[in-house]
């Protein structure tokens, strides 16, 4: 294949398509073969995520960074073992490669990534991809790993067998990436095509794959020694569960304690910027809108960014290192007790930071009913948005005393109790769902254990960047919108050209309108306004109450506590805590559930169920404590 240097651009694979316009090249390969790492190498920050129309499968597209101004768009397809359209992932890959995906033309070229350490298993995919007759480059990834473990392959011979150029690569170190770029710019010629068997019969396919790898001089690498050694610890009868608890504990500790200084930093910066805006802008409606409306609302949410990014850092590192698969294995039996499976564990863990990424993480669960059950219970986990609400109310109503021994104080115990409450609701809901509407055949649980690998910092960095951007987008749209609307509701109708007292404003009217509904729970109209605004996002209630009582919550939290104590009894406070533990007050979560389940049915069910549960339990709590 190296003999084709001269014909760059003319006999090129991509030139088979429409030459002058942009070329589309699809990246396909089995799971864990390193598709995304190579994709990231080729596109860097010029990528975007989108859903294919009509399905929940997400795909990344991006412009390849190529010398000489070549315009090539890459699309990263989901990991598949074959092109039989059985699962949604397989159907998407099948449709894209056949040019049947609406909004996407048939690819002009394909980069097929196979795992060089396990060639015979992955060659059947090559047969079905190559038989589509799209110019294809076969990339044998993890070449460094293969050589290190004593494996070898003759790429020239393999290219002859397959009728397609073959390169050895290592997406994590960058080996072979130049060759891939050369393919994209048309610098690698395609050998004469050969007839390939596309067999439905797996054993026959395997037989063919074995023969091809023999012809190509493939030496299977020795088993990964380090993976075996690490598994001897991480899957040990005693050390396994112990390290599992340690890892999960460390994640929690870092998210809640380690993130503190960072969050304080962001809080300080937000307050400083608000102060600056107040000082610079002339007094009036505009300043009020920008500072009290927009900035206080958006700022209240920005504070959570360090926590969410830290969680994603952990999840990405654990996933890319291969530990996550072991964690799912260890958690499987416990999750099976509530009718779920090991793969639900990680999304549920993520939900302790934020339900939005958690719901996105359920994509790894193939069983549709398990996936929906996991999506439905994820918002019960105590997300970080509940923390500011819990902290405020606990500080205002629960005296700080020793509770159990000298270390556990009443306030900490109350907070822990709320975590347990959310968890219990999730478990019970899962049990109910899995034994009724989402009852499924006991899910066949199949989980591949990838070898342990050192995560690529490039990939981790890009993923965090992705998440940060998504989060900022949310803060810049949903939260900003709600903040402006709330500000407007609290500011009209104008009295003598100024904002009215809160009870005469539209927001006050709204609060009074829902008062009959919430009075049984011990809440008055002021809390009612907070409940209405917190439908957008839970933490918004803190800012709202600050606005209602006319104080800035950041500066004068003690003042806000005192004001709350006048308006809420102890029983009402408990009811409020319980309400927040259960209610679905998060527009972003509802939006992501709609996107992931493909309709309004499940978000509607979830909203109604969680709301009813919150109201009933809050009522019970109010009755018990008053």
């Amino acid at each position, binding site marked *: 294949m190296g003999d084709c240097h001269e014909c760059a651009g003319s006999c090129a694979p991509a030139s088979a398509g429409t030459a002058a316009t942009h070329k589309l090249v699809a990246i396909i390969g089995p799971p864990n073969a390193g598709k995304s790492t190579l994709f990231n190498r080729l596109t860097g920050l010029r990528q975007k995520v989108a859903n294919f129309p009509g399905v929940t499968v997400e795909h990344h597209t991006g412009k390849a960074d190529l010398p000489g101004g070549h315009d090539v768009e890459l699309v990263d397809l989901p990991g598949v073992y074959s092109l039989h359209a059985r699962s949604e992932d397989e159907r998407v890959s099948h449709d894209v490669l056949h040019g049947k995906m609406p909004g996407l033309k048939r690819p002009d070229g394909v980069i097929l990534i196979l795992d060089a350490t396990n060639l015979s298993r992955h060659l059947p995919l090559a047969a079905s991809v190559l038989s589509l007759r799209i110019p294809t480059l076969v990339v044998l990834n993890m070449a460094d790993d293969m050589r290190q473990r004593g494996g070898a392959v003759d790429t020239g011979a393999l290219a002859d067998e397959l009728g397609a150029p073959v390169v050895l690569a290592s997406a994590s170190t960058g080996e072979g990436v130049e060759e891939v770029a050369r393919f994209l710019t048309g610098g690698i010629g395609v050998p004469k095509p050969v007839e390939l068997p596309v067999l439905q019969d797996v054993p026959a396919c395997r037989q063919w794959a074995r023969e091809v790898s023999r012809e190509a001089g493939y030496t299977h690498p020795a088993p990964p020694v380090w993976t075996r050694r690490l598994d001897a610890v991480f*899957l040990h009868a005693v050390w396994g569960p112990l390290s599992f608890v340690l890892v999960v504990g460390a994640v929690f500790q870092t998210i809640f304690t380690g993130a503190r200084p960072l969050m304080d930093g962001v809080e300080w910066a937000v307050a400083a910027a608000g102060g600056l805006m107040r000082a610079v802008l002339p007094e009036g409606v505009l300043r009020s809108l920008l500072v009290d409306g927009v900035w206080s609302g958006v700022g209240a949410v920005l504070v959570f960014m360090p926590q969410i990014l830290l969680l994603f850092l952990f999840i990405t590192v654990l996933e890319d290192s291969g530990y996550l698969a072991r964690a799912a294995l260890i958690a499987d039996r416990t999750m099976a007790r509530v009718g779920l499976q090991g793969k639900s564990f990680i999304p549920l863990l993520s939900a302790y930071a934020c339900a939005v990424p958690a719901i996105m993480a359920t994509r790894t669960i193939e069983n549709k009913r398990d996936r929906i059950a996991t999506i439905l219970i994820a918002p019960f986990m105590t997300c970080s948005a509940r923390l500011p609400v819990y902290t405020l109310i606990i500080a205002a109503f629960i005296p700080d005393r020793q509770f159990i021994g000298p270390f556990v104080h009443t306030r900490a115990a109350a907070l822990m109790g709320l975590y347990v409450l959310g968890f219990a609701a999730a478990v019970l809901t899962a049990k109910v769902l899995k034994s009724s509407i989402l009852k499924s055949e006991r899910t*066949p649980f199949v*989980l591949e254990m990838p070898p342990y690998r050192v995560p690529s910092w490039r990939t981790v960095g890009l993923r965090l960047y992705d998440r940060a951007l998504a989060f900022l987008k949310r803060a810049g749209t949903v939260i900003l919108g709600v903040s402006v609307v709330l500000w407007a509701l609290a500011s009209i109708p104008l009295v003598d050209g100024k904002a009215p007292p809160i009870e005469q404003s539209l927001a006050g009217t709204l609060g009074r309108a829902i008062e009959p509904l919430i009075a049984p729970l011990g809440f008055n109209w002021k809390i009612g306004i907070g409940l209405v605004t917190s439908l957008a996002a839970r933490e918004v209630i803190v800012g709202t109450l600050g606005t209602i009582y006319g104080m800035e919550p950041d500066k004068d939290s003690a003042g806000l506590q005192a004001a709350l104590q006048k308006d809420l009894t102890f029983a009402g406070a408990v009811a409020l805590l319980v309400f927040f533990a259960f209610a679905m007050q998060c527009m972003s979560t509802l939006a992501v559930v709609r996107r992931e389940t493909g309709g309004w049915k499940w978000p509607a069910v979830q909203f109604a169920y969680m709301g009813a549960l919150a109201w009933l339990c809050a009522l019970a709590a109010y009755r018990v404590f008053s």
Partner: protein
Amino acid sequence: MQLSFKNGARANGPASLADLGENEEGTLERIDLPADFAHRLMELGFVPGHAITVAHSAPGGDPRVFRVDGSEIALRRETARHILLRKQ
């Protein structure tokens, strides 16, 4: 190559993957599961005639990791019971 027969009844019928102990090996005979799922397992390397070795397992012995065709796949016991082994 050895098979462990934990319960006597197994000695007569075909043994399954679930009857193997850690580090024991067997040869796959057939998969007694719905076609779609059997197909999927085959794509992962559970092909008749292939050797399968039992590796680690989750605490309590379920699910278990099986080494097959150069990769490691975890299955629950209830699935492993339906993957039948060739008699020795």
